[in-house]
C-alpha cells in the first residue's frame, strides 16, 4: 500500500511540473463544454421558434381550383406563392420545403361531397421540413374538419356523430425530459469520453513513456512489486481523471445556471453532480486500466497513441446501436460498459433516479470489469520485455 501511495505521489508531482500539459488537460474541456452546450442549445431553440413563428412560404399548384381552401390557409400565417414550373425539382433543390398541389378534379369532388384529393410534395429526409410540414398539415386538417362539420350540420346531423371514439392523448414526457432531448444525446457521450480518456496522456506517459525514457529499468529493479508500481500509476491517472471530471461537471453546472431558458428543468443539483461523479468512477477506472494494459504491451508511446482513435469510438458504439434499435431500459443494459454509463447519466439528468438494484448492478459489474482488466494488465507488467527498451 505504501508503494502504491509513493508511486502515485511521484507521478502526480512529476505531472504537476509539466504545467502546460496539466492546464490543457484540466481546463480545455471545462472551457469548451459551455461554449458547445450554449451554442447547440440556443441554436436548436432558435431554429424551432423561427420556424414556428415566421411566415411560411407555400407555393400552390392549381390554387384556382380551391379558392376557399387557399384563402383559409393564407389566414394561418402562411404566404401563398404562385405555382412553380417543376415542383419535384424545386423540392429536390431545396428551393421550397413544401409545395401544395390541388388537382383539377378537386372542384368536381368537392361539389359531390366526396373526399377531395389534394397533394403535399416534400422531402421527409430533410430535418428542416419537419416543422413547416406539421404546420401545413395542421392547417389543412383544420379546414377539412371545419368544412366536414358544416356539411353535417347542413344535413341536420350532429357533427359529433362522425366521431365514434375521441382520442385524448396525455403525453407523459415531462417538460424536463423534453428539454433534455438534445442535451441527452450529447452530454453522456461528452462525459463518458472525458472520463474514459481524460487521463490518457498521463497513463501512456507513465508506462510507455517511462519505458521509452528508460527509467522503468531502475524502477523495476527496486523491491517494489510490479503490481504495486502499476496500481500507483493507475491511481494517479484516476485522481487526475476525477479532478478533470469534477471541473467539467462544475462548468456544466455553471453553464446551466447561466444558460437561461433552454436548460431550465435539467437536474444539475449538487446531489446529481455528486451522483454523476460516482457513475463516472468505473469509467475512469476502466479507461486508465485499459490504457495501462495497452501501454504495457506496445513498443512505444507512438504505438500506444495510435490506439487512441479506436478508443474514442468505443463510447459511442452502444449509443448508436441503441439509436438504431431502441429497446426499453432493462437491467442488462447497466452491465454493458459505455451503454451502462449512458443509461445512468440520462436517467440522472432526466430526474428519474436509477433504482438501488440498478445502482448496485452498475457499480458491481463496472468494478468487476476494471478488476479483470487490472489482472491482465499486471500480467503485461511482468513481461521481461517491459523493463528493457534498449
Amino acid at each position, binding site marked *: 500500500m505504501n*508503494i502504491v501511495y509513493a508511486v502515485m505521489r*511521484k507521478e502526480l508531482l512529476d505531472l504537476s511540473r509539466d504545467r502546460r500539459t496539466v492546464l490543457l488537460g484540466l481546463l480545455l474541456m471545462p472551457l469548451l463544454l459551455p461554449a458547445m452546450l450554449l451554442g447547440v442549445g440556443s441554436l436548436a431553440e432558435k431554429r424551432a421558434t423561427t420556424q414556428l413563428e415566421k411566415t411560411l412560404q407555400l407555393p400552390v399548384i392549381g390554387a384556382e381550383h380551391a379558392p376557399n381552401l387557399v384563402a383559409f390557409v393564407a389566414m394561418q400565417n402562411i404566404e401563398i406563392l404562385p405555382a412553380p414550373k417543376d415542383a419535384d425539382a424545386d423540392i429536390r433543390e431545396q428551393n421550397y420545403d413544401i409545395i401544395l398541389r390541388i388537382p383539377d378534379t378537386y372542384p368536381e369532388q368537392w361539389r359531390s361531397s366526396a373526399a377531395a384529393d389534394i397533394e403535399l410534395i416534400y422531402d421527409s429526409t430533410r430535418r428542416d421540413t419537419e416543422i413547416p410540414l406539421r404546420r401545413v398539415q395542421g392547417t389543412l386538417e383544420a379546414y377539412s374538419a371545419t368544412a366536414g362539420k358544416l356539411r353535417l350540420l347542413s344535413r341536420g346531423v350532429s357533427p359529433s356523430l362522425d366521431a365514434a371514439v375521441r382520442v385524448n392523448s396525455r403525453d407523459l414526457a415531462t417538460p424536463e425530459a423534453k428539454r433534455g432531448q438534445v442535451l441527452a444525446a450529447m452530454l453522456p457521450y461528452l462525459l463518458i469520453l472525458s472520463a474514459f480518456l481524460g487521463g490518457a496522456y498521463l497513463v501512456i506517459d507513465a508506462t510507455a513513456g517511462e519505458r521509452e525514457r*528508460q527509467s522503468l*529499468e*531502475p*524502477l523495476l*529493479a*527496486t523491491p517494489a512489486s510490479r503490481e504495486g508500481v502499476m496500481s500507483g500509476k493507475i491511481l494517479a491517472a484516476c485522481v487526475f481523471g476525477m479532478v478533470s471530471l469534477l471541473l467539467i461537471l462544475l462548468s456544466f453546472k455553471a453553464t446551466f445556471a447561466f444558460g437561461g431558458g433552454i436548460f431550465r428543468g435539467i437536474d444539475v443539483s449538487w446531489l446529481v453532480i455528486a451522483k454523476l461523479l460516482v457513475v463516472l468512477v468505473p469509467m475512469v477506472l476502466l479507461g486508465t486500466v485499459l490504457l495501462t494494459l495497452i501501454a504495457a504491451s506496445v513498443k512505444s508511446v507512438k504505438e500506444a497513441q495510435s490506439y487512441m482513435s479506436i478508443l474514442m469510438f468505443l463510447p459511442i458504439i452502444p449509443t448508436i446501436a441503441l439509436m438504431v434499435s431502441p429497446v426499453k431500459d432493462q437491467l442488462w443494459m447497466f452491465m454493458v460498459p459505455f451503454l451502462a454509463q449512458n443509461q445512468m447519466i440520462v436517467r440522472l439528468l432526466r430526474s428519474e433516479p436509477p433504482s438501488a438494484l440498478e445502482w448496485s448492478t452498475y457499480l458491481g459489474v463496472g468494478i468487476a470489469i476494471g478488476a479483470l482488466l487490472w489482472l491482465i494488465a499486471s500480467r503485461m507488467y511482468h513481461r521481461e520485455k517491459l523493463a*528493457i527498451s534498449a
Partner: protein
Amino acid sequence: MIDVRDLHKQFKTKNGIVKAVDGVSFTANDGEITGLLGPNGAGKTTTMRMLYTLMTPDRGTVTVDGFDIAKDAEAVRRRLGVLPDARGVYKRLSPRENIAYFGRLHGMKEDAIAKQTQRLSDALGMAEIMDRQTEGFSQGQRTKTAIARALVHDPRNVILDEPTNGLDVMTTRAMREFLRHLRSEGRCVIFSSHIMQEVAALCDRIVIIAKGQVVAQGNADELRAHYGEENLEDAFVKAIGSEEGLHL
C-alpha cells in the same frame, strides 16, 4: 557477496537466435571491486540484468548474499543497489526527489531517507544541484543522481553498468574514489567497463567476457602471468582474441 554459476541467456531476433550470455560464472566478494571487462556487445549488460532480476536466465543460478534470484527475487533486490546502463533519472524531479522516491519504494522512513540523502550528497559532492530539476543536467550530474538514488537504501551489494561512461576526467577520478570508498565500507561492488585502464586501476578481481563467455578471470598479476605478457593491455587483447571493440 554475489555468486554467478553458469548463466545462459539467448534472444530471438529477426536474424535468428543470439546467444547473448553463454556460460558465465564468477564470484564477487564483499570488500572487493569486481570488474566485468569486455568489448561492446560481449554480454556484460545482459549478465548484469540477470543479476538484478530484470531478466530470467535460461539456465544457471545467481545468489546474492545466499538468496537465489529465481526463488527470492525481492530479497535479492533489497540487497542490491543498481545503476543501469541507461540512467533513467526523472528529469522533472530534483535529485532529492529522485532519491526520496526510491527510498520510499524500498520502504524507508522519511527521516532515514533524509539522513541517507545528506550522506550521499556529501560523498558525491552534489550539494549544489540537490534541489534543481535534473532536466539539462550534465552526464556526470545525471550519473551522480542515479548512483545516489541506487544507494539510498544502503545496500551491501552494488552493481554499476559502465559508471564512468561519458564522464570527463575529473568526474571519472571522483567516481573511482567513490567506488574505493564503497569497497572500504566492506561492500561487494561489481562494475562493467570496456575501458582497460579503468578496470586495471580499480579492480581487485577482473572477469573478462567476450562473446557471452568468460575467457579469463583473476587479479591483474594473475592475468599477466597466465598470458605470459608483461603488459596487461596485451594480456587483454590475447584473452579476447581480437582487438575489435576494445577501447584501449
